[in-house]
């Protein structure tokens, strides 16, 4: 019977050890990068920017009805923001880039952000998206900033996809921790309106796919006066958004 000689075996063992060490190193680095992201300073939800509701449709063909609008309604630029609460890259954007964009472009009145759900990572994503709509329905008239508080809290508590963190019961538990939001009313809203809301979200998802969006987070920055738009995908650094905003603003 054929047997490997000792030198071949020694080299194979060394190569295997090297492979395991290299793989372990990259996986450890990935875990550290993951944990590092959660320690990033977040914008405090309570002193967040203004929110508005609107039933208008924009020149880009986005119906604002049912979608939270952050910033001044008179801002010359729209930033349509498609996201999924289970998407780790969306959380990366929320933690690393979004606070800077809010400070630099939303508070200054240049950009208004339109939040659009793009659930594509399973049942938990759809549940979170439906709850998002119910939260907005509850707070949009009197305390629209509560939406931001809930939105940020959910992203801050994001767990592993499919682990159950985005189940209805767990999301309601998270909702109970947010001041000014009635979790029982949200639960009722979900029971009574889920199919209608899911249908509306499906329309949004279909529109996003027609726009060529294949993952999240995804953004289209739209100059309403010039009718010009630009697309960004993924959790890109704030500098890339600065460039895109300047380009579309001057279009």
């Amino acid at each position: 019977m054929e047997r490997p000689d000792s030198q071949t075996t020694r080299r194979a063992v060394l190569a295997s050890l090297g492979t395991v060490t290299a793989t372990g190193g990259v996986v450890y680095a990935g875990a550290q990068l993951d944990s590092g992201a959660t320690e990033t300073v977040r914008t405090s939800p309570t002193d967040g920017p203004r929110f508005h509701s609107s039933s208008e449709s924009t020149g880009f063909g986005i119906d604002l009805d049912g979608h939270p609008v952050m910033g001044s309604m008179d801002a010359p630029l729209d930033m349509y923001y498609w996201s999924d609460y289970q998407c780790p890259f969306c959380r990366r954007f929320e933690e690393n880039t979004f606070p800077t964009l809010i400070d630099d472009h939303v508070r200054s009145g240049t950009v208004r952000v339109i939040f659009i759900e793009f659930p594509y990572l399973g049942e938990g994503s759809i549940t979170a998206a439906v709850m998002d709509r119910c939260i907005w329905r509850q707070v949009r008239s009197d305390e629209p900033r509560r939406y931001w508080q809930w939105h940020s809290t959910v992203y801050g508590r994001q767990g592993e996809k499919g682990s159950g963190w985005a189940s209805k019961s767990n999301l309601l538990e998270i909702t109970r921790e947010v001041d000014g939001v009635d979790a029982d009313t949200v639960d009722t809203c979900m029971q009574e309106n889920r199919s209608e809301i899911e249908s509306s979200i499906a329309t949004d998802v279909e529109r996003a796919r027609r726009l060529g969006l294949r993952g999240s987070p995804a953004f289209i920055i739209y100059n309403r006066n010039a009718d010009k738009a630009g697309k960004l995908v993924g959790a890109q650094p704030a500098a890339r958004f600065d460039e895109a905003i300047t380009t579309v603003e001057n279009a």
Partner: protein
Amino acid sequence: MSDSRVQAHVVRLLEGLGYPLTSVRRTLVTVYVAAVIYCLLVLSTFPTYSAQLLGADIAYFDEAILALTANTYQTAGAVGLGLVCGYAIMTGIAVTAAVGRVRVAGSQNARRLSAVLPGLLASGCASCGAGLLGLVGLAGALATLPFDGNLLRLAGLLLAGWLSRPPR
């Protein structure tokens, strides 16, 4: 498969794994190819993001690699990221072995060796998967596969291991 055939495959696999350590140059080629393949695989998990970021400025390369490494860990877990690394290293070994064979056997054997390339591409596609599926409009498709597509990545790794064996 008989015991002797299994034994022969194991011997060839061990020889293939140990081949990059037979000289410093081969080790360096293996590490270089593995690093390049790892970067390609990680960047391909979100191709439109990678294309936009690197198209804007190549200086964003490290940002893209780090962000997508973290994203792969978060979406596919330690096992998924480990399989991507394992595939990259196995490809490094396969390429080093293929180059070594060309140098020893001469260009006449190069045509036979070109058969390795489709295999590497096939196993590479199995290993990255998510981004390519996203490109053809199946965003999130891997999420619906068993173990978030890790079985697909494992298939890619096994195929790369098969290709890294030296010829009889």
